[in-house]
């Protein structure tokens, strides 16, 4: 590996980071300025929110069920199975709910955003829009950004709720009464836990949409390039979600 290769790699990485933050900053600045493209926003809400509902419900339910199952096995020798609701709630609302929902959305929506924008780039549709005087960031980026940061917290709340229901289905098999299950949830959960469970998907939603848009708008090289870009989006956003999750968790532990 020669020095020039390392230099070029570092240079291109730094340029990509710079271009990502430039796009992010411009998108933030334009999020509250007209025109708002409500129709495009509604389409994206439908695609991102409604379109992801089924996969989120499925993920939430089965994760809640497996969490409850594993917790019950561990708690049984200590005669503490009545705490299963709290354990499922804490794990799901603070960590697994936001992270799994975001990973699902990153795979499903992030890649779709990139593929759509990437295809528009390689077929010169983006250039055509620019020639028509359209602000690409307002027209294409901000509606996707707004839809994702609004839809992901809602999807996470749904995932959390169905996971608790899933957890109870398993817990009921071990003789846990609904009131015991609910009591343990309120006993374990604090306000900051709910807050943490909502802030995380908001930030993850921001990351997914911005990575999706950035990679999509910088797509090169035809159909193969679009495929490569979609893959990059899923990898980048998934890694960023997991890394950011640690730092956010650390932050919330500190302020507690």
């Amino acid at each position: 590996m020669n020095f020039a290769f390392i230099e070029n790699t570092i240079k291109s990485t730094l340029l990509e980071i710079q271009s990502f933050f430039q796009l992010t900053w411009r998108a933030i600045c334009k999020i509250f300025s007209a025109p708002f493209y409500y129709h495009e926003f509604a389409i994206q809400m439908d695609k991102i929110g409604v379109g992801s509902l089924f996969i989120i419900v499925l993920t939430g339910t089965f994760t809640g069920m497996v969490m409850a199952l594993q917790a019950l096995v561990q708690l049984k020798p200590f005669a503490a199975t009545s705490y299963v609701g709290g354990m499922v709630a804490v794990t799901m609302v603070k960590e697994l709910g936001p992270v799994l929902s975001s990973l699902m959305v990153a795979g499903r929506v992030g890649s779709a955003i990139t593929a759509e924008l990437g295809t528009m780039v390689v077929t010169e549709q983006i250039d055509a829009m620019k020639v028509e005087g359209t602000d690409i960031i307002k027209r294409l980026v901000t509606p996707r950004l707004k839809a994702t940061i609004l839809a992901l917290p809602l999807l996470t709340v749904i995932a959390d709720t169905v996971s608790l229901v899933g957890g109870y289905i398993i817990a009921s098999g071990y003789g846990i009464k609904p009131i015991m299950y609910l009591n343990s949830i309120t006993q374990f959960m604090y306000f900051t836990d709910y807050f943490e469970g909502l802030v995380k998907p908001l930030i993850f939603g921001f990351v997914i949409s911005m990575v999706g848009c950035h990679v999509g708008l910088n797509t090169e090289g035809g159909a193969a390039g679009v495929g490569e870009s979609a893959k990059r989006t899923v990898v980048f956003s998934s890694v960023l979600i997991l890394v950011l999750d640690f730092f956010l968790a650390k932050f919330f532990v500190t302020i507690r």
Partner: protein
Amino acid sequence: MPEQHTIRMEDLCYSIDGRKILENVSLVLEKGVNRTILGASGCGKTTILKLLLGLLKPDSGRIIIGGNPLEGLPESEQIRIRKQIAIVFQGGALFDSMTVGENVGYRMLQEGELTQREIERIVLEKLSFVGLKDTIDLYPAQLSGGMKKRVAISRALASNADYIFFDEPTTGLDPIGVYNICHLMRRLQEEGKTTLMVTHDMETAFAVSQKFSFIYRARLIFDGTREEMLHSDLPEIREFLKPTDASIFTRHK
């Protein structure tokens, strides 16, 4: 010709990763004079269009549209000046998610100055011009390649621009498709539009243009009429018009 009726390029240079794509290209497009930029594939023809449209920024040199140098102007002002120009991209570049009607009326819908009824009337009129009135509710995916280009022409026409650029308009079309596009370009010219086409298809170029520019290895080496081109002594042009086995284009590939 007065400056307000011209698009002027002065010493345009453009490079990618140190590779020169255009070097000191100067050219004047005059309103009413239809021009074709010729050259081998990859010689920088489309780059000229993209620079004029503001899709790329030149490394150096100036672009002056209607007497207004674009250099230093705010982006909004540049967009306003560039509205005199429309383009028909190589593949049509129709917006997939919109119907043909929405594609044609895109600029009018964006500007919001006309009522829905007026926009519909104009869209129908422009689609009738290209003979595709019945496709108004179809999506681009439902059209053939030639139809997409014709819709792109009607979109360019609906934008009410004075200059219409064509990027390789006949590439990939059958002879009937090529004939249709040439016919439409001539009709546009009759309607007072000035066309600038980039192509390597000599037949199309001679059918629709009065002036010809030739790009070779990033430089503009010829600018003149059809007769001047046909009788040019430049070896690059002679070989382009009648390529041989020992063609310089083949050698330099």
